[in-house]
């Protein structure tokens, strides 16, 4: 008994779009690099949800497999990202994105 049979695909589309946008909002809204990072994760998850929805609607497993790769990438990105954050923090003692704007013009 799958939700996709009852709930129209559009709603999932809508839901993931909203989540995605909230992610974007987060990126725009906050200055803390870590929160921004989390918002990006949120965006990725929105995409995941969309993929899963599609895959089960099309009853095609490729979509879900793709989600695995996204997860892998997300994990990798987070690992590297946080490492970089740590490095920056080590030098600036801050995780504020606005601290770093020496490079401009």
């Amino acid at each position: 008994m799958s939700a996709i049979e009852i709930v129209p695909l559009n709603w999932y589309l809508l839901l993931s779009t909203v989540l995605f946008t909230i992610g974007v909002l987060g990126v725009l809204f906050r200055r803390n690099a870590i929160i921004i990072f989390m918002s990006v994760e949120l965006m990725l998850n929105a995409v995941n949800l969309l993929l899963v929805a599609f895959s089960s609607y099309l009853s095609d497993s490729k979509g879900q497999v793709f989600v695995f790769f996204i997860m892998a990438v997300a994990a990798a990105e987070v690992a590297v990202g946080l490492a970089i954050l740590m490095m920056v923090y080590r030098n600036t003692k801050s995780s504020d994105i606005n601290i770093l704007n020496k490079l401009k013009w």
Partner: protein
Amino acid sequence: MKALILLSSLGVITLLAEIFSFKKLLYPFVLLGLAATFVVNLFDWNLTQNTFFGMMQYDHFAVGFTSVILIIAFLWFLMSDSFFREETSVTDHFALVIFALAGTVIMVSYTNMTMLFLGIEILSISMYILAGSKKDDLNSNESAFKYLIMGAFATGFLLFGIALIYGATGSFDLAEIKIFITSHEGTVPAIFYAGVLLMLIGLAFKVSAAPFHFWAPDVYQGAPTVITAFMATIVKTAAFAAFLRLFANTFAGVTDTWINIVWVMAALTLLVGNITAVMQTSTKRMLAYSSVAHAGYMLLALLAVNNLSTSAVLFYATAYSIGSIGTFCILHIITTAKGNDNVDSFNGLGKSNPKLALIMTIVLLSLAGIPPTAGFFAKYFIFTAAFQSGFTGIVLIAIIASLIGVYYYFRIIIAMYFKEGSDEAITVQTSHKILLIAVAIATIALGLFPDFIIRMF
């Protein structure tokens, strides 16, 4: 495929070098490996059948770009041995660069969104790291940081696009998508177009096309010069190959959705890139902007979706990469010698190091697109391609832009020959000499006999 396998194994071996401690031999070994890869890669020519589970295909396009990338990589290694000497974590650098190369190989040969995605990510992630590889240098940190955040953000859109396209077509495979487009003439669901646009945005970010270019100047300036060179040449080439593979081929059926946007992007990129470069004091940043501008030229070829565009982009990428490697190498030498990368640190180079100045002049002329250098033909092919598809307006813009381009490239030439500077000559190490001579010869040779690259396709 062979190239991919070789490269990944080469990367693993370099990692092992840490353990079995043959770091000393690593540098020549890697050069050897690259050479071997290059040779092996050529064997894939005309083996168009071998698609690996429809994931990647080694067609002429792929082989062509791979070989170009490998050549550039080889030159790049010649340029940046210092990068592998002074640092503590040598093997990591080797590994990252080589894996990045593996990523590029995937990007030029993918036939499936999954591979595209993975390729881009492998490349990007290693770039994030390498950009930040000067751990105590704030600029390096900043560039890595900016690159990372904006890159990740852009990836989100790319993925959203992929997802939508999957939703519409039920597949990640380029061939199938193409078939879907042709079969569903007119009944293609709207989300597919949305997907195409979102992917366009994602890729536009990777090739640093305006208005998604903002990361490029800062990141280029902050990153260590060698890494900047890597980004400006290899990364850009690979990104454009990926771009072309997807849009000039798979999405060629739905040009109406994206052509105008690319038109505007190209125009913006050309103007912003060139105009902003004019007033830069830091040569490195200036080159960063110029590389943005060059992306604009290559977008022209993408715009003209015709038989010429592939070879045009390939030639342009080659000419431009060779030129950039040359310039960055000299910039590297100057920066290490003079301590800063301002334009006036080139003053009097014409007197102190005439040969260096000469080569710099040649490559700058090539970047400015003046015959008989490779850069001229590169621009020529691009313009012809765009012209043939009837994009006269953008070609005119491009011409104006390239005139502005001449403006800032010649600032360096004038500085070298006209301004008075310190007269003591800078000593150039052998590997750099080899590299520079090779670059100069290649630039002139490609300028005089551009035919053999064109005939590849």
